[in-house]
Structures are given as structure tokens and as C-alpha cells.
């Protein structure tokens, strides 16, 4: 579903290499987790995958569902089925949250050559998703992330994920700023959206999120590379012993 081959990337402005050869393969139906200390490049990886213009890919390939996407715009990557839940969702004042959701939903439909939905039809789509995420309708009337609390922003990301139903969803440190109940709810949404034909990549610092989203594969990332890969028990080991022991292992 998602294949990353020898991916190198740098911060454009500072000309600073962050990713130094990431290799990763996620098959359809799988959930992977990437864990790593601060500055390991795990969040950079998710931004580079989504096409953040602040980063430049200097080598390597990203293959989504069989197609290389590293040359595609961020818009097209999203239309092709990639989604990233932001670690720090961006506030956009004056833009209605509900209208924004519909705009994004319709962009996807248009791309698939399906008819766009009007606000009324969208309401039906949205009701189910709101229930799934456990969000109040009043969220839709607010400006996009504007004045949202940290937790509200994260849940709004999960709502977008539920509405857009991507092929590959990346959750970039979604757990930071969420309490246990909210974590549990995120886990439920992921379980509900999980199918044999999609995949999830969870980026996190701590293993506690992985109690709710149980990964098939766990990777440890240090200094821009994946240094160890294992099953979910690796997450516990990393949490307990830190990252000093890994890296030398591979």
C-alpha cells in the first residue's frame, strides 16, 4: 500500500538533512507504528510523505498504491488517497469547519469523477462520522481549528480522516494533548475505519497510544533512519529502555 525506498529529505531553508535513507513497506490491511526520540525525524517523515513544501526530497521514492508520488503536489497526494493527521493542526480564521469538510470531500469525489454532494446530502454523510468520532454538531459551525483547544484540534483531524476515508492514513503524534478517553475514542475510530484495503501509520513518542491502536509492526527511528523493526512488543521495550540500546542492534 505504501512503500518508502531510501528516502532522503532536508529542510529547504536551512539546507539541513533530516531523513537519511528511510525504508519502509506497509501492506494493505496493516497498521504500523514509528517510535523515536525527539529529533529522530519521525514527524518530518510524515510531513515529507504528505508533501510539506518546507522539505525537499533529495533522494528516494514514495510509492502509494503502486504509483510513485514524490513528484506529485500535496493536493494530488491527498486526492490519490494519502492523509496525514497533523501534529499541530493549522488555524484558518473565517473558514467554516463544515464547509471546509465538504470542500475536501467534494474535491475527492470530483477526482474520482463522482458527483459532488450538496450541503444537505453531505449532512447525512457527516452525521455518521460525527457519531463515530463522538463530536458535537456545533463543531461544524466554528471556524476551522480557530480557537479550538489542543484536544479539539486533534479530534477535528480524526473527523477529517473519518470523512475522507483515505487509503493510507498517517497519524502524526495524535496522542500528544489527548487524555485517556480521547485516546480510546481515536482507537475506536481507527478500528472502525480499518479494512483489508487500507493502512495506517502511527507516529508516536510513547507506547500508550498503541494500547488503543494495536500495530502489526513497530519501527524504531533514530537520526533519520529506521534502526529496528519488530512486533508490538518492541514498543514496550522502547518505552521501558529508551532508544539507546537500539540503533546499534541493526
Amino acid at each position, binding site marked *: 500500500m505504501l512503500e518508502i525506498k531510501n528516502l532522503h529529505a532536508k529542510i529547504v531553508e536551512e539546507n539541513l538533512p533530516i531523513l537519511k535513507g528511510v525504508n519502509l513497506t506497509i501492506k494493505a490491511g496493516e497498521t504500523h507504528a514509528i517510535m523515536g526520540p525527539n529529533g529522530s525525524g519521525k514527524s518530518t517523515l510524515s510531513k515529507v510523505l504528505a*508533501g510539506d513544501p518546507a522539505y525537499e526530497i533529495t533522494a528516494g521514492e514514495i510509492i502509494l498504491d503502486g504509483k510513485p508520488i514524490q513528484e506529485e503536489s*500535496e493536493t494530488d*497526494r491527498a486526492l490519490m488517497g494519502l492523509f496525514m493527521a497533523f501534529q499541530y493542526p493549522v488555524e484558518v480564521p*473565517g*473558514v467554516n469547519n463544515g464547509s471546509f469538510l465538504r470542500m475536501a470531500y467534494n474535491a475527492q469525489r470530483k477526482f474520482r469523477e463522482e458527483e459532488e454532494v450538496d450541503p444537505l446530502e453531505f449532512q447525512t454523510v457527516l452525521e455518521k462520522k460525527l457519531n463515530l468520532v463522538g463530536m458535537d454538531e456545533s463543531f461544524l459551525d466554528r471556524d476551522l481549528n480557530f480557537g479550538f483547544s489542543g484536544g479539539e484540534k486533534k479530534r477535528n483531524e480524526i473527523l477529517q480522516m473519518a470523512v475522507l476515508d483515505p487509503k493510507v492514513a498517517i497519524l502524526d503524534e495524535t496522542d500528544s494533548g489527548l487524555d485517556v478517553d480521547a485516546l480510546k475514542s481515536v482507537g475506536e475510530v481507527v478500528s472502525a475505519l480499518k479494512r483489508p484495503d487500507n493502512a495506517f501509520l502511527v507516529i508516536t513518542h510513547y507506547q500508550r497510544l498503541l494500547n488503543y491502536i494495536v500495530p502489526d509492526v513497530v519501527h524504531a527511528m533514530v537520526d533519520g533512519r529506521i534502526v529496528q523493526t519488530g512486533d508490538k512488543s518492541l514498543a514496550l521495550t522502547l518505552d521501558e529502555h529508551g532508544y539507546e540500546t537500539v540503533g546499534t542492534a541493526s
Partner: protein
Amino acid sequence: MTEKDEEMIETMQSKHDKTIDEMVNKDYEFGFQTDIETELAPKGLNEDTIRFISKKKNEPEFMLEFRLKAYKHWLTMKEPEWSVVKYPPIDFQDIHYYAAPKKKIELESMDDVDPELKRTFEKLGIPLLEQKRMAGVAVDAIFDSVSVATTYKKKLLEHGVVFCPISEALEEYPELVKKYMGSVVPHTDNFYAALNAAVFTDGSFVYIPKGVKCPMDLSSYFRINTENTGQFERTLIICEEKASVTYLEGCTAPMFDTNQLHAAVVELVALDDASIDYSTVQNWYAGDKETGKGGIFNFVTKRGKCLGARSKISWTQIETGSAITWKYPSCLLIGDDSVGEFYSVALTNHFQQADTGTKMIHIGKNTKSTIISKGISAGKSANTYRGLVQMNKSAKGARNYTQCDSMLIGDKCSANTLPTIDIRNQSAQCEHEASTSRVGEDQLFYLMSRGISLDEALATIVSGFCQDVFKKLPDEFAVEANQLLGLQLEHSVG
């Protein structure tokens, strides 16, 4: 440099930059000129020109005197230089002060309108009859120097509402015109107001009698068609006690290499408990995108007088066109408890310059004013907010709230905010908030990462930025304004 090198450099440019360049090259939609027989006054300005115009219009004697007095005063004045806009000196002798379609038009029968003229207005999205009738908006269309069609006149008259070209008002309601014209913007006010008073050729006249709420929105469309023509129209709106009206104004012009001068005067008068909402969507030709050549100089004086107690005047403007915009729709808050409002979106792109804002002069007790200004600069443009809030000694308990937000798109444009606050009594309150932001790569990336295109993402962000002002526009205009912004900004991210 070889072709290959160029290619390399191009690939090295960020993808956004490229799209920006494409966007910037969007053409002005209304740049066509209508081929229509026109009667022109000879170029140049002197007493004879003024007599010619006055005679053409069959004006009463007092009007000619008004014009000549203004002209004599104008001769003693110097072009103002205090604004930050830059432009070559205007040769006032190189302008036609009168241009009119040759065919005489029967105002009540649209069938008699020159088909070419009708097509022009259709191209502009102003089908004079059918669509506006459905929308329930009465329209006065001004083509170069004359009003060519005013719709719904009869129906409005049944309510006592007068809506007609000002030249006609001079014939039919000379007393009203005499009483109010120049009472808000005297010819001594400024250089361009004096010029306008001397040579104005047409404009709209609105009179809403006591207690009448105008049954439909009134609308004017201004079009400069002839090269080297100045447009000097004058709008006068009078709302008697407890009367109210919503007035919309739209403007376009063809593309010429030479600059055209538009020096209009708008005067609003609101008596006790009257209310006037005046909205403008200005989309004059802005000049060549590459060179900045041509385009309209929009030097306009707009002012409203809240003469009566509890009266209210509200200005809403969406300024997207013109090479230079230089105007400050203002309110004189004379009546106690009167209210003045100014909601503005000024968008500049390419080489455009805008120096715009408002003046709120508080004279009566407990007068209240609100200023919300949104300036958006893209390309190499310059956008300035200039405002004055003045609370006189007599304005006990007066209040003002001002919010000035600027948004920058790219790094070659500029934004200035120049507010002046002058408070002369202890009980007055003023609040001022200002912000400047750059359209963030982070906001664009966020929206695009949800599958929204760059163009749409930018338009969405800018439209969100202007929401406070768009909310004030009548629905029909809000949609138009939104589209206009989207269009003007296409491919301008930097």
C-alpha cells in the same frame, strides 16, 4: 545560459512559485471596448467645456453657476501630494470631459437601447432587465458620461422613491438637488471634488421620502468606455426621516494603455432615524500586469452626513480593481446617537496601489462608529489603510471600534496602516486593533493536504480573512465579491 540550465533552474523553483506566476497572468475579464458611436466634447478644460456640458444637460442656471464657481476655485488649488500613491502627473487638458453614446435612449423602454450597449452590459453580467427584475434590484447604468438606463423607475415612484440620473433630477426636482448637492462634499473640499463639481456629467439621484423603506435594493453600474475620457459622476442619496435604502454600485472599464481618471463624488444625507447602506464592488481595469501601464486612477470622494438623530450610514466596499485607488468613504456623525460604519476589503495585485480608509467625525452625543478594514496585497502592489477617528468636544459618550487587518501574499508587496485618532473629550472611547499576517505556507499546506487545489486553498484563506466584511454585503454581492477575489488572486501565491 543553455536551455538545459534554464530548465534546471525552473525545476529548482518551488512548485508554488510556478503556480503563482501562472496565476498572476490571469487576464482582466472586462477589458473589451464597445464599438458604439460616441459624442465627445473636445479635449481640455476651460469655461467653455463647462458651459458645453451644462448646456448638453439642459441644466438650470444655478447649476451652471455651481459649476463655474467650483471651476474657479479648482484653478486656485494644487493637486494633493500627501498620499503614498505614486503616479505620473495628470494632464487635465488631455481629457475628454464629456462622452455620450450618440443614440438617444428612451429610458423606460429597454428595447430601444442600442443592442451593442445592451450586449456590453450583458457581458458585464448586468442584464439590465430580466435578471435584475428577478433579483428585485433597480439598476441605473452609467456609460461614460451619461446614464443610459434606469430600471423600475415607475414602480419605485409609486412608493414615492425617486431613482433617476442626476441630470434628470436637475430637471424634475431642482429644489432637492439645489438643497443637498455640495452640502456634504463642498466644492472646496479637495482638488478632485472641486474638479468633479465643475465637470460632473451624470450619476444617480435617490430620494426616499419620510417613513419609506425602499422596496428594493438600488444599484448603479459605471462603465468607462471611451479612451481618454474622464468619468466624473456624482451620486446624491437623501433619506428623509425614518426612511431607509440599500444601494449597490459596481464599476468596470476597458483596457487602454493610457490611464483614465475617475473622480466621482458621492454624497449621502440621512435625517432622523434614517438608514443608508452603501456597497461598492469596484473592479476598474487595473493596468497591465507586466508593466503596470494603463488602468484607472480612482480618486473618489465619498461622504455621508448623519444629520438626524439615530440615523445610520454604512459603507461597505470591495476594492479589487484600478491602477490607483485613493478614497476614504467617511461619515459625519452630527445627529445624537447616530451610527457610522465602514467595512472594507481592498485587494491589490501586480502594480496596483491603494490608499484607502475612512474618516469618522463624531460631533453628536453618543455617536458610534465601527471600522473594519481588510487589506490584501499580492504581487508588487502597495496597500495602505489611512483612517481618522475624530471625537469632537460635543461628542459626549461617543464610541469607536476599529480593526485593521493586513494580509500579505508573497514578498514583493507592501501594506501600511496609518490610523489617526483625535479625541477631544473625556467621555469618548476608542478601541483600535491591528494585525498584519502573511498567507502562511502552513495554512496552504494544510488545506492542500486535504485534496484542495492551491488556487482554491488561497481563495478560501483570503475569503476567510474577509469574512467580517462579506457578512455585511447583500447576498447577491457577497457571492460576486467572493468570486472576484478568487479571480484576482488566481496564481498569486508566493
